[in-house]
């Protein structure tokens, strides 16, 4: 079976494309990207602010149970056309990844299905490659959590 989410990243380029088809009407797919409560659920982070409009800005923050900030991100929305398009910047705090430009295209496939194309552009090839490597760290963390979860049940 072909994977639902596809990543197209060519060597030596400072960009990548992510595409995904959803069993959701396009307005719900769009809503998931502009409704602060839903964004918080999907991203697993606290949304400190989210102005879903042109020149609006947003800020995310995640803290651990001790109150220590473990994830920070912020950006500015440059274009927002309901059910069609979002252009925004995204910058993760305290990381060397720089600012990424994100172009989201929302497409209606049928009344019940839709497609998202994310075009993400970086300042340099090195920055893009570093971000692609996050997946490795993330995968290891997930595996680690899973092991802890299983180990927890064995207690």
């Amino acid at each position, binding site marked *: 079976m072909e994977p639902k989410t596809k990543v197209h990243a060519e060597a*030596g380029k400072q960009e990548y494309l992510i595409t995904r088809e959803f069993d959701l009407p396009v307005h719900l797919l769009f809503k998931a990207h502009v409704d602060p409560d839903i964004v918080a659920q999907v991203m697993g982070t606290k949304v400190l602010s989210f102005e879903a409009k042109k020149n609006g800005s947003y800020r995310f923050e995640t803290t651990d149970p001790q109150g220590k900030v473990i994830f920070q991100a912020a950006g500015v929305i440059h274009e927002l056309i309901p059910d069609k398009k979002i252009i925004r910047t995204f910058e993760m705090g305290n990381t060397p990844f720089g600012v990424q430009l994100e172009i989201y295209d929302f497409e209606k496939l049928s009344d019940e299905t839709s497609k998202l194309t994310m075009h993400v552009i970086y300042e340099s090839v090195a920055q893009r490659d570093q971000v692609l490597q996050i997946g490795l760290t993330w995968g290891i963390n997930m595996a680690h959590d899973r092991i802890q979860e299983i180990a927890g049940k064995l207690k």
Partner: protein
Amino acid sequence: MNLRRDVFQAIADPTRRAILLLVATQTMTAGAIAANFDTARPTISRHLQILTECELLEPRPNGREIYYQFNPKKMKEVAEFIEPFRKMWDDRFNKLESIMKKYK
């Protein structure tokens, strides 16, 4: 895991990518490869060494010359390298889909 990272770092360099493109179409000697670049010969040798170490190139000694051959199998690992990143997005989108189905 480390090896894959090395492959990715190897192709992050524009000169090394150019070398791979050259060698992908035909096996070449170090001298023939270096002739395509303005870069000093020892620099090209260093690039060839890195590409060989991460197995993107395979050296084939032939008499006094070493011919370099492209190893497409290793390039496939580069695609596998981004698999965890793809998986990360896939999981996030699956979550999005299941959350939004409640709003239908």
